[in-house]
């Protein structure tokens, strides 16, 4: 199918894009790898597309005060090739190759993926597992939203109608940081049937501050806190038994299959956390 007609405006500054968002039924166009697909299928039909790709200063990756700050327009491929990401955000480095295919990763942006909040997408779960945060810019300026307050529901976030996600920030990995990532998909690069992103700190021979975030199991990425404490004690079997998930059936698999697979992934990821490469 073809998109319904819309007007197009290339914004040159954030303030301009924020002002344009005040117009009726306007959408932001970043990488467009989800948006244009929904336009083509007429699942969405905005009256105005605001192209933010020409706005300067949103494509940087920088270390600032113990945090990695990633501009909203950093593309998946750019992050994949970044030494700073490999060193300071190793969870993202593991997750990025699972996102779509090379042609998709050349266009798709990290900010777009977080703001779209697809429940089966990798990056929202990574942001949650890393206790990261989002920088939003609106008519009144900038504010920071913690990952756990950001994802509100199916494709729903804490962004106000006239706010734009301008950056994400993650705590930079230290020498004791451990990360784990695994997902199961029908074809490499497809949306996950179920996936798991995890971070922890090595604590002697054990782990502390374990954070597990599943995706593809509900309306948003979800943390499973009971399993986190079991894993911190080194009890993988206990963590799998305690798995507190009730995924709904979807086109890919029944809830029961997803729950079983979530246990399989938990074992794989636990191993990654406990035996770093």
């Amino acid at each position, binding site marked *: *199918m*073809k*998109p*319904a*007609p*819309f*007007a*197009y*405006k290339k914004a040159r500054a954030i303030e301009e894009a924020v002002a*344009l968002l005040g117009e009726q039924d306007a959408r932001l*166009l970043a990488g*467009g*790898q989800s948006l*244009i*697909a929904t*336009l*083509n*299928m007429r699942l969405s039909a905005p009256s*105005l*597309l605001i*192209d933010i*790709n020409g706005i300067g200063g949103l494509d940087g990756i920088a270390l600032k005060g113990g945090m990695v700050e990633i501009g909203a327009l950093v593309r998946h*491929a750019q992050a994949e090739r970044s030494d700073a990401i490999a060193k300071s955000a190793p969870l993202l480095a593991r997750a990025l*190759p699972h996102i*779509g*295919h*090379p*042609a*998709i990763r*050349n*266009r798709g942006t990290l900010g777009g993926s977080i703001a779209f909040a697809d429940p089966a997408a990798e990056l929202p779960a990574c942001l949650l597992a890393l206790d990261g945060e989002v920088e939003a810019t609106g008519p009144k300026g900038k504010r920071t939203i913690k990952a756990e307050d950001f994802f509100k529901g199916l494709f729903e976030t804490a962004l106000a109608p006239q706010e734009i996600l301008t950056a994400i920030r993650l705590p930079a990995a230290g020498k004791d940081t451990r990360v784990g990532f695994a997902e199961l998909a029908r*074809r*490499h*690069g497809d949306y996950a049937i179920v996936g798991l992103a995890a971070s922890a700190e090595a604590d002697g021979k054990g782990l502390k501050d374990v954070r597990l975030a599943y995706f593809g199991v509900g309306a948003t990425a979800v943390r499973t806190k009971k399993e986190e404490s079991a894993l911190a004690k080194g009890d993988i079997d206990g963590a799998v038994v305690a798995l507190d998930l009730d995924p709904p059936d979807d086109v890919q698999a029944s809830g029961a299959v997803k729950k079983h697979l979530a246990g399989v992934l938990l074992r794989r990821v636990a191993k990654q956390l406990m035996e770093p490469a």
Partner: protein
Amino acid sequence: MTDTALDISLTINGERVSERVDARTTLVDFLRDGLSLTGSHVGCEHGVCGVCTVRVNGDIVRGCLMLAVQCDGATVETIEGLSDTGEIADLQAAFEQRNALQCGYCTPGILVAAQDLLKRAKENERVPSRNEIREHLSGNYCRCTGYQAIVDAVEAVAQARAGETK
């Protein structure tokens, strides 16, 4: 203040093109319907199948997931350009030799995607493994399911370009 049709200028296969396009026209539809460059195909129109793969500013993209208006000022290369310059002559010969196409619908997209991998591999002075070839082509469907021969052909070219023979 905002328009549903815009003037764009871009370079396509080395030629300067200036056209007025509807904002809603995707890049692949612009190439096919506007410029009669019908080598790029239209399949799923939502980024899954890969038959519309083209190069924009040197990077492969989905022609169905970019708008023509976004390509103002860009350099676009299609299968026609890659063929005419001889950039992929060896790859095309390998596809023919190894029967790496049947109906041929997916072939332009696969050639563009495979050349992307081969070019990067050459720059990094390494030969991609069969697994890497499969992963790089994971976004391109062949519904005749001739993947084995496609991977064979790409692998043979990777080795030949690295100065190895199989």
